């Protein structure tokens, strides 16, 4: 078991290294660097100005060296002021050091956000917290509903209830967040006026039913169908097992067969699916936060990516990749614990 986890962690590190290198090379493509320079050198900069800015701030240094600096294996260089010849911080708003220092991800420095004019590590935790709250409520809503639908549909395969619920789940998997968001907002916020079409007040005035229901509904809908279908398949399979037939033949009533015998075994497979939903939710978070103007991790990612905010994009990529890989690991280990027939080696 320990070996398995260690090996997986090794693969995880390799994956993170590869992915960050890919992201790093993409955000440093020439058109992207120019975009960054134009964003930072006031209006109507000439090509020479742009080039000058890029050279001065070290964006034209060797690629490998810069990647090593970001990781923390090479010292970050301060900028040299051309008029005085003295070293000044690269970005004033992040109070970066004025002498070369090893300060990268390994040292816990995620860099400086050029779009938000703040340290990445200053902005990221609060955004992650906001998204965490959103995710928590989505899970609270999504998991029980989908498990209930799945179990009800799967306990009598082919019944009318099963058909109805299955079509319902198919419909919900056909509704991506930006579709349900638009329809729900038009219906509940614009037409009926029951709910708030923006979640911005959730961060300033606290979460309420009025401002937080729409984002949660929007995000949950897409996932419910998927988990429900997996639960249904698993439940339907368990219901055909020998021990269920034995329990029925013993004379137990249907309800206690379902609750006491079938349910526990049927919920093993959905556990994995629910864990693997986290990466999916990540895309949903980006859409929902953009749509409802909720300043969490997804909103930050969009801001960073659309302004080519290099350090912020890299930090967001790193966090999402860690999240995806950790959930995969946890779901594998959890599956082994829940299902005694599986042994990880």
């Amino acid at each position, binding site marked *: 078991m320990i070996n398995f986890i260690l090996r997986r962690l090794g693969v995880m590190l390799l994956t993170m290294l590869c992915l960050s290198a890919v992201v790093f090379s993409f955000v440093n493509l020439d*058109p*992207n660097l120019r975009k960054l320079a134009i964003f930072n050198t006031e209006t109507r900069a000439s090509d020479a100005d742009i080039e000058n800015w890029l050279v001065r701030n070290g964006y034209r240094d060797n690629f490998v060296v810069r990647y090593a600096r970001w990781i923390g294996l090479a010292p970050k260089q301060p900028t040299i002021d051309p008029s005085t010849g003295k070293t000044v911080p690269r970005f004033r708003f992040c109070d970066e050091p004025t002498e070369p220092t090893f300060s990268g991800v390994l040292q816990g420095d995620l860099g400086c956000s050029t779009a938000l004019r703040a340290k990445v590590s200053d902005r990221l935790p609060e955004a992650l917290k906001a998204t965490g709250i959103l995710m928590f409520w989505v899970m609270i809503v999504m998991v029980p509903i989908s498990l209930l639908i799945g179990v009800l549909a799967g306990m009598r395969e082919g019944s009318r209830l099963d058909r109805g619920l299955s079509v319902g789940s*198919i*419909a919900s*998997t*056909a509704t991506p967040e*930006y579709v349900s968001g*638009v*329809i729900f*907002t038009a219906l509940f916020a614009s037409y009926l006026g029951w709910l708030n079409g923006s979640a911005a007040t959730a961060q300033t005035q606290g979460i309420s039913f009025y401002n937080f229901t729409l984002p949660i509904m929007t995000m949950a809908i897409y996932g419910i169908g998927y988990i429900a279908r997996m639960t249904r398949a698993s439940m339907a399979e368990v219901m055909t097992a020998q021990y269920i037939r034995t329990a029925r033949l013993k004379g137990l009533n249907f309800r206690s067969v379902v609750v006491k015998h079938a349910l526990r075994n049927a919920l093993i497979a959905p556990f994995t699916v629910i864990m693997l939903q986290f990466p999916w939710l990540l895309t949903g978070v980006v859409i929902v936060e953009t749509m409802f103007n909720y300043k969490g991790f997804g909103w930050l990612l969009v801001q960073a990516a659309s302004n080519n905010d290099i350090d912020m994009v890299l930090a967001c990529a790193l966090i999402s990749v860690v999240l995806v890989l950790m959930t995969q690991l946890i779901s594998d280990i959890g599956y082994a614990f829940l299902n005694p027939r599986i042994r990880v080696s």
Partner: protein
Amino acid sequence: MTETVGFLEIASGIVLRFWPAWIGLAILFAGIYAFKPRLGLFGELTNTWVGVLGVGICAFWLLTAIFAQLVAPVDPGIQNAVMKNSVPGGVDPATGRVFLLGADLYGRDVFSRMVYGARIVLTIAPAATLIAVLVGATLGLPAGYFGGKIDSLLSFLANLVLAFPVILLFYLLVTPGIMDTPIPYAMAGVLFLFPIVFFGVLFYTRFSTRPERLYLALGITLVLGAWIYSGLVFDADPLGIVSIEPNELNIFVAVVFASSPGVYRIVRGLTLDIKTRDYVSAAQTRGETPWYIMLWEILPNARGPLIVDTCLRIGYTTILLGTLGFFGLGMGPESPDWGTAIKDGSKVAQLRLYYWQGVTPAIALMSLVLGLNLLADALREESLRD
């Protein structure tokens, strides 16, 4: 304020505008019921109402896309300042034409844009899915069959792409700046090579003992492949028929890239399962080459789950395209595709006052994906029954 027509007139107007689709559907279903015994699996599909609905919705959108010029009253790009943000059923005072589902911020007909949007979605989504399936199959078969180092390497790469948040991948791959770099063309060059390799190997392994057939099949593959390849990757089709806008190529490549690892995983899993069967051992004993076994013994036996997955994947690709449009990536701002229309319509003010602008493309997208999902479900049921 302009004149408007009532709800009934709007509804009947919309139904009437879709006349080419209704005629097509009537012919399709009449054909299916008439030739049911001879159609095999496809005929069986219409036994359940889920199947009927699935086939019906997919065919409806396909027909709408094909006959978009007949269905849509006007060109999707025409702006009409008078009808700006018109409500559904608004009548244009100049021409007397009814804007069935209203007009958008620029006075463009929402209904026509939705109809033309179907055309964009239904060209890119199935084509991208098809290429993704071919890429996934070409890589997944050897990974599952040979195992070992190839499998480890390919699976690592697939997991790498899958660990990427889709949205970040799109932001990196589909930015306006990236079209100045050779990256999209290089990726297109690699990804579009897979179908040619796939069909080349497919025919080569089958007809290697019958040269006359082999040369014909390989010749057709190479000529067709080179023709489409030159048109798509280099935009240098000698006949000028196959061409693609740089931004559409960019979207296409990104979508193929994002969805082929999923196909790879499924094909690999199916191959691992099927390669233990007796007929594979029989072929191995006969001395068939590994690629013959993969392409002519394993792949045909994996077709059931693969077809179902492809069907679901077209729906997923449609959703991905919508996501791209929603974030304003790739598609031009004038493009009538559903994602862009949803983005424009989902701005706070638009959604509050002029909800039809966002809701119309949203419902269109949802119904198409629903149709594809229902079709996949019906196909799965039917293939399980065999």
